[in-house]
Every structure is written in C-alpha cells, then in structure tokens.
C-alpha cells in the first residue's frame, strides 16, 4: 500500500495540501468502516461458536432483552461475553502499547513482547501471585496489575539503560530478547518450586490466555485501558512531532523529557494490564500497528491510535476464536495463534524495510 502512495505522485497527482488531505480522509473512512464491521462480525461469530452453538437471533435476544434459555444465558453472560470483551480490550491495549514503544524507540519492531517487557511483568506477577496465594489464598486484580506494572517498568528501565549504552537498534532488540529469557527462566524457576495448587493457577496464566475472565476483570481493565487510551489520544499531537526526531520535536515546543516519561508510563500501564489478566501475548504489538499504518497510508497518530486499538481488538478476537475452536475441546495458547499470524508479518516487514533502503 506504500506503493500506492508513491504511485499516485508518480502519476502526477497534484493540487494543494487540502486536496491531498481530502483524498486521505476518504481512505481513513473506508479503513475504519471495515474495522468496525469486522469488529461486530467477529463479536457475533465469537459468541455464536463454541461447544454450544447459539444462533444469532437468540444471541441478540439474550444480550439486548436478557431473555432466553437459562443455560444459553449463562454461557453468553458468564463465559463468552466477558472473554470477548477482554480479548477486545486487551488486544487493543497490546497493539497500542506496541505503537507507543515503536514511537519511543523510533523502531518499528519494538513491542512489549520483543523487548522483554511482558516477560518482566510476568515474572513479578508470578512472584506476587505465589506470595498472595500462600498468604491469603487469593489475589486481587489490582495487585496483579500493580505487580505487572512494576515488572514492566523494571524491564523498560533496563532496556533504556542498554539503549543509552549502545546506539544500535539490533543490539536493543537482542537485549530485549535476553531480558525476556532471563525473566522467563526466573518465572519457570518459581513455578517449579511453587506448591501444586498454585501451579495450576500460574501455569495456565503464564502461557497466555483469555479464558476464565469474569465481569470484575472486565470492569477493572475497562477502567484502566479506557483512561490510558484517552490519554494516549490526547498525546497524539506530540507523538506526531516526536516521529520527526527528538530535536525537531523540541523545536516544535515539545518538552521531550516529560513526553518520554509519559510514553513509557502509558505503554507500561497498557502492557502491564494485558499481562496481569492474560499473560504474555506475542507479536500483536508489532504486527497490528504496522498493518494499520500501511492500510491507512499514514503514520499520523490521531488516526493510527484509534485504528491500532480497534485493529488490535479484532486481531486478538480472531486469534482467540481460533485458539478456542481449532482443536476444540483442547484450547491453544493465545500466543501460539498470534505468533503464527504475527511473526510472518514482522518478517515481511523487515524484508520490505530492507528493500525500501535500496
């Protein structure tokens, strides 16, 4: 789709900036329309399919009139709907976290998973989880989120320290992958020595999954993700300036220091929320922003941020559906599916970049 951008110019498409922006808005509208349609379609599909298939007419009745078969009511309201909403929210949050990290590191293959941030969050959550389970027998969502946030910040802090020392993107990514390994090793270590009852709890979670979500989870993450999304949209103007490079951003009036801190905070909150509820999920943060920017034909944050969120939601819901249904009743890890789709996109992206340089 980048070619179409250049193709247009080669064709001598001229006119002022206003005309150009007008043409673009048409494209944005189409992309958003497709995303929204896909969102609703996949929602219905997700509610509809499972061990028990529920036809669409009954779904609508159950959701909007809260009337219908009791078992079906329970399946939809207690199991499928929370899971779908969580998948959508956390998928969006993950994609957005990726976009923010890419902006921060000025590198399109930065993301919470690749940089080891998810693994950092996972490690601290595992520690906190075992501690809480042994002491109190239960863990609150908030404790999990705070733990994940601390873990995210720790990993990000480490990555930042590395990025100061080596000014190379490749080295940065290698450092991220290494942090991921270290944190995963520590997590495995903890799990190995945890009590049996904890392991069941921990193991499923540390693999990454949207299963077992309840309405209180939905409420908590809606609150956090909602506020963070709102703040991110408010930041879209300085993010746009920052895409021009730090020095230019400053000359445009951005307080770069403060802005950097804000970016790190927002992306850490987002990846922490995802990790706390669903465990580490790979590649969504890289693949989705890339796909969105390409299909919109722009990197303008004000457009890309909502599109990325929506795209991340759709992507994760599709992946979750596949994870649930592919080998039903056995459920796959969500990362298995996201990797399968996400990793080839990342490879494609790298090849494209290399060609662009030539």
């Amino acid at each position, binding site marked *: 789709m980048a070619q179409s951008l250049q193709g247009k110019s080669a064709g001598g498409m001229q006119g002022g900036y206003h005309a150009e922006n007008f043409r673009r808005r048409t494209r944005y509208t189409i992309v958003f329309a497709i995303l929204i349609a896909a969102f609703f379609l996949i929602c219905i599909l997700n509610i509809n399919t499972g061990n028990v298939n529920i036809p669409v007419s009954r779904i609508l009745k159950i959701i909007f009139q809260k009337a219908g078969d009791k078992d079906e009511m329970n399946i939809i309201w207690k199991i499928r709907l929370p899971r779908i909403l969580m998948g959508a929210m956390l998928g969006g949050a993950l994609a957005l976290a990726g976009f923010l990290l890419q902006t921060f590191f000025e590198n399109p293959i930065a993301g919470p998973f690749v940089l080891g941030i998810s693994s950092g969050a996972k490690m601290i959550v595992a520690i906190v989880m075992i501690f809480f389970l042994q002491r109190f027998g239960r863990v609150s969502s908030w404790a999990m989120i705070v733990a994940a946030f601390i873990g995210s910040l720790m990993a990000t802090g480490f990555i930042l320290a590395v990025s100061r020392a080596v000014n190379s993107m490749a080295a940065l990514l290698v450092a991220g992958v290494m942090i991921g390994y270290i944190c995963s090793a520590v997590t495995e270590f903890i799990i190995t020595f945890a009590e049996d009852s904890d392991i069941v709890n921990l193991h499923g979670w540390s693999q990454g999954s949207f299963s077992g979500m309840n309405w209180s989870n939905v409420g908590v993450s809606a609150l956090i993700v909602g506020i963070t999304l709102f703040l991110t949209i408010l930041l879209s103007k300085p993010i746009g300036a920052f895409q021009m490079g730090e020095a*230019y951003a400053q000359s445009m009036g951005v307080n770069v220091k403060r802005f950097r801190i804000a970016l790190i905070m927002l992306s850490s909150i987002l990846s922490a929320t995802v990790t706390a509820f669903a465990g580490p999920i790979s590649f969504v943060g890289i693949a989705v922003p890339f796909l969105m920017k390409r299909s919109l034909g722009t*990197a303008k944050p004000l457009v890309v941020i909502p599109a990325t969120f929506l795209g991340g939601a759709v992507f994760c819901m599709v992946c979750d559906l596949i994870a649930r249904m592919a080998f039903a009743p056995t459920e796959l890890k969500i990362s298995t599916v996201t990797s399968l789709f996400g990793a080839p996109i990342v490879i494609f992206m790298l090849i494209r970049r290399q060609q662009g340089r030539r």
Partner: protein
Amino acid sequence: MSQYYFHMDQLTVGYNGQPLIRDIEIGIRQGEIVTLIGPNGAGKSTILKSITRQLSLIGGKVQFAEKELRSYSYKELSSRMAVVLTERMRPELMTCHDVVATGRYPYTGRLGILSEEDERIVDESMRAVHAEDIGTRDFNAISDGQRQRVLLARAICQEPEIIILDEPTSFLDVRHKLELLAILRNMAKQKGITVIMSLHEIDLAMKISDKIVCVKGDHIFRYGEPEEIFEESMIRNLYDIDNGFFDPLFGSIELPAPGTNVRRNAGGMDGAEGKSPSPHTLVLSSCGTGIPVFRRLQRQNEPFISGILYTNDVDYQLARLLAAEVITEKPFCQISDAAFARAMEAVEKCERVIDAGVEIGESNARMEDILAAAEKAGKMERI
C-alpha cells in the same frame, strides 16, 4: 537590556558540562544573516545546538528579543524560532506536505488538527521554496536537494522570527546551493527574518552574510562583516591552510602554486615557501588572457613567471597566487626600465615563452620588444 535582537552574552557552550567554546560574544540585529564558518569539529554545531536549546548552556546567557532564551517555554519559543538540522530523518509514510505541515505545530489545537488556513500556509511555504510540485511525494523518496528545500519550507511554515540552520547546503549541488541561499536572503531582507547558520562554503558565506563568525579551537576566532573577515591570511589561519589559497577578491579557492612542494605543517604560513627556484616558462598576458594559461600550467604543475602585468589587471590577481614570480608595473604607467629588464632576463632564462595575448597600447609599448626578443630566441609559443 541589550541593543541587539539576538545577543550571545559571554556564552560558554559544550557537551555534558565540558566547555568547548568559551566567552562567545555576538550581537545580531533583526533581519541579519549571520554565518558561522570554521574547520570541521570546531564547534559550529555545538553553538547552534546551544542557542536552539538542544544543549544547555554552560555559562553566560542568550538574550533573544528582550528576553533571556532560558526563560522561554519550549512552546513559546517554537512560534518564534525554527530550525533546519543536519540529522537525517526518515519519517514513516509522510508526504512532503506532511513534513512541512509539522511546522504548523505551535499553532494548532490540542489534537493538532490542521485548519484550512494551515493547509493554505503549507501550500504557500512550498511555493516559497519552489517545491510545490513534490508536495504529495513520499519524503523518503526525494533527492537531497529537494529534502533540504522541504525542510526549509517546514521552517518557513512555522512563521518564525528567526531561523537557525546547520549546514543547510551540505549534499546540495551548485544550483540548489544558490537557490537555497537566495531564498534565505529574500526571507531575511523582505520579511526581516533573522538567519543564523553554519556553512562549509566560505565563498558563499562571504557573499550572503551580513556578519561572519569564525569558530576555531576554544573561542571565537573573529567576528565581523565579511569585508573585515575575508583577508587571505585570515582564512588561511582559520582553516590552517598551508597548501592552497583563498582569494578574498573573488571568493575563490585555489590549489597551491605549481611547483610548490606541499609539506603540511612545515612551519610557517608563507605561501612562497618551498617554491621551485627556476621556472622554465614565462607567460605574457593582459586583460584576463593569462588566466586560462595559468590554470593549465597549474594543472600540469609547471612553475611559471608572469609578466609584465599591471597591478590592476585581472590576470595579476591570479598570477599573484599561482606564479613563481610576477613582474609588475603600476597601473597606467609606462613600463619602467626595472620591470623591462626583469622581463628580458626572464625571456633569456626560460625555455619557453607563452604569448597568451597582450593588448598593446601607448603605455605598455615596450611589450613589443619583449615579444620580439622571445620570437628571436625561438622560444615563442602562441595560443
């Protein structure tokens, strides 16, 4: 209170608290073009980064329009000061229009949505740099020259009072260099926008600048109008040139004189040092006919004597730099016996005499005799 619009007052700049250049004292008036010149690594960029607040000042202060630079908020400063930097950027999926439009940043609202007025200013800025036809092209897919122009359009779009450019003419070919500088001159003189920049091309710096700042070592070597700065020795000292010349009259850069043994750092700055003692060629010329001959001999590294040149002859200006010896006469005078004798001696000494074309009139009638002597000796070579 300062009498200047932009005043660097006892400024000390550097990196990480390490002073690099001390006690910079420069006063600039509104609408002036001020150019920093000096050898690579002298700290031109450091100064520019410091006055654009990318680096914090180590000492002293910068007064900008009656207010200290540090007391501006970034936002406030952004609507008054625009920059064109050297760092290469590769913005993702941005057309040239988009890049220029980022200049509107200080003027747009919370979400940065452009109004139709903003879009109009973008178009106008593109026209100002003659780049309106590349507006919809991807910024990463245009040439260096176009890129510089787009970045300048971006700065113009910011509607600043002062523009600071770090080596804006690097990577540009001659045509684009001239075009860019002409745009800057128009902006400065018509709109009263102050321009501070660094340039590598001293010849261009001399021609466009109202003031020149020579940066070298840990201090400002010289500061003043181009006429004061551009003396031959001044430029040679600034850049430590010992194998070539800068001709301030034409602003041209010359290679060392033919036959000169180039020994870098051989001590003194004396241009005559090391010249071969016995040139074999005498060039007779006048009114510019000698210049191409001098150049050819220079290329062949063939030392030569030039004569008899009036010191107001255009040939003299180049011969002075390139010839091993110049036989001269005062303007509008008859050729003296001394000059004549030296010329005759040169005819005798040299293996060949090149007649590049001599205009002979009443006062230099004796040139006829010199030409005849060369002819008689069979050394004459006409071109």
